[in-house]
C-alpha cells in the first residue's frame, strides 16, 4: 500500500473529509464552474477580489478525494494573496503535479502545504483531479464564459 499512501497523504484525506472554505460565498465578484468529465468531478468556485487581492474564496461541488482536497487546500493557499501571486502559484502547482521540472524548479518550499499533492504525478489520470480547482480559479479570475473542462 506504500504507493497509495504517497497519493493519499493524511493531509489529503483530512481535507477531503472536512473541506475548508466549503459553501457559497455570498459577496463573490468572480465565479466559475469546472468539470472533470472523466470521473464526474464538479466544482463551483467563488472568489471575492478587491484591489488586485483575493479577499475571500470558497467552493462547492462534489468530487473525489484528490479534487476535493486540492480545492480545499487551494482556497487556504490563495486567501489573502495578490492575484498576481496566485497566478504564479498556479504555474508552480501545475509544474509540481505534472512533474514538469521547468516550472517546478522555483523552490518546492514555497508550495507549503500544497506539496502534499506532489504524489499525483505518479498517477497521470489523477493530475486532472488535482488541477481542476486551479483551472477553475483561473477561469473565474479571467471571467471565462464557458465552464472549464479538463478534457
Amino acid at each position, binding site marked *: *500500500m506504500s*504507493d*497509495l499512501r504517497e*497519493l*493519499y497523504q493524511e493531509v489529503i*484525506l483530512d481535507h477531503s*473529509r472536512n473541506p475548508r472554505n466549503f459553501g457559497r460565498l455570498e459577496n463573490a465578484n468572480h465565479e466559475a464552474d469546472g468539470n472533470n*468529465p*472523466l*470521473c*464526474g*468531478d*464538479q466544482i463551483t468556485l467563488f472568489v471575492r477580489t478587491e484591489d488586485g487581492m483575493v479577499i475571500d474564496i470558497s467552493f462547492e461541488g*462534489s*468530487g*473525489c*478525494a*484528490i479534487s*476535493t482536497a486540492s480545492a480545499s487546500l487551494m482556497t487556504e493557499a490563495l486567501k489573502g494573496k495578490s492575484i498576481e501571486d496566485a497566478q504564479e502559484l498556479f504555474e508552480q502547482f501545475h509544474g509540481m503535479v505534472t512533474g514538469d521540472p521547468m516550472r517546478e524548479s522555483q523552490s518546492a518550499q514555497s508550495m507549503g502545504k500544497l506539496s502534499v499533492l506532489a504524489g499525483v504525478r505518479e*498517477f497521470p489520470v*489523477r493530475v486532472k*483531479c488535482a488541477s481542476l480547482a486551479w483551472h477553475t480559479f483561473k477561469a473565474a479570475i479571467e471571467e471565462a464564459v464557458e465552464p472549464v473542462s479538463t478534457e
Partner: protein
Amino acid sequence: MNRTAFDPHDVRGDFPILSRRIHGTPLVYLDSAATSQKPKRVLDTLATFYETSNANVHRAIHHLGEEATAAYEGAREILCRFIGAGDPTCCIFVKNTTEGLNLVANSWGRSHLQPGDEIVLTEMEHHSNIVPWQLVAQERGAKIRYVPITSDGLLDMEAFAGLLTNRTRIVGVAHASNVLGTINPVAEIARIAHDAGAIVVADGAQSVPHMPVDVTTLDVDFMAFSSHKMCGPTGAGMLYGRKELLEEMPPFLGGGDMIERVSKEGTTFAKLPYKFEAGTPDIAEVVAMGAAAEYLSDLGLDVIHTYETELVDYALEQISTLEGVRIFGPREGRASLVSFSFEKIHPHDLSEFLNQDSIAVRAGHHCTHILHDVLGVPATTRASFAFYNTFEEIDLLVRSCRKAIDFFS
C-alpha cells in the same frame, strides 16, 4: 447454491491476458462491459487473415481477393445466424454500436422525421443512443421524450405507454443497461411501439455478448452491437435492420463499394448490405468478429447467461454486505454487472484503491449522464463480469472494497 456445471477455469486458458500479473498480483478483470478480453482463437484469426488471406474485398479478381471476400461474407453469415436475423443482407458491418445507431438516426431519422414528430428514449440509455437522436431532432424540429425508471431500476412501462402519441416515430431502448444491468422487455416494447406506429431501435451492446438474442423474436426494426464487447476485436460492429426499412433508406456515407454506377449526373446505389458499407471495411476485424461469435456459440449463449447470472447474483449478495453501500438496478433478472456507490468514498478513489490490488473496475458516469442525474449520484463504481470470471474474483473485489472503506473513513 446449486451452481451450473460450467467451470470458468476451463476457458480462462483461452484468454492469454488473464494470466497477466500487475504489480506482481494476478489481474482481476471486472470491466468486461467496457470491453471484453479476447480468446486466442480470435487473436489467431486476426493474425492468420493478415498472414495468409489479406486483400481488399469485393474488388479484386485474384485468389487472395476471393479468399478475403469469402471470409468477410462468411463472417456476415455467422453473425446473421448469431442474432437470428434470417437474411444476411439485413446485417450491415459498422465500426461499433455507436456508428450503427448514428447510421439509423442519420439515414432513417433525417429522411422520415417531420417537425413536431416525437422520439421516445429511456432514461437509462447510453449516450450513443441519445446524442445522435438529439442531433437529428434539433435539425428536424422533432421532440424527445424519456421513459422514466422505477426506484428498482426498471422501465416504467405504464409511463412508456402513456408517452406514445400519434406523433411518435421512433422508440430507442437499450436491451440491457450498462449501468443498472436491467434487461428491458424489448419484445413487449416493440409490440406496443408498433401498435402506435413507431419503429424500434434497440441497443444490443450489453445483451448480444451475454445471452441468446434473436432479433426476429424480439421483432425490433434495428439493433446495433459491438464486436469488442463480445470477445472480438475493436473496429467492428453490426447493425441489423428490417429489410423493408433498409431498402428505402438513403445511404449514410458515400464512397467506394456502396455504389452501383457513378456518373457526372449522379449515382445509383449498390444493393443491401453494400449500400451502407462505404469504403474499405475493417476486414480482418470483421472476420475475427465472426470467430468471436463462433467461440461464444460453441460455449452456448444460454450456458454463458446462466453462469453469468449466478456470478452476478453472488456479487449482489456479497457487495450488499459492505457498510454504507448503495446498489443500483434490479435485484434479479439482470445482466452481469453491478454498479454501486458509497456515501463517503468517491468511485474514482475506490477504483484507484482496487487497482492497487490489480482489480480493474470502472468508475465514472459510464456515458449515462441522464441516468446518473436521475439516480442523484455524480458517478458510480461498476464491476462487470464475463463467463471467464470466477466467484473467487468477486471475493477479492469485496475484500478489497472492505479495506478501502477502512482506508477512506
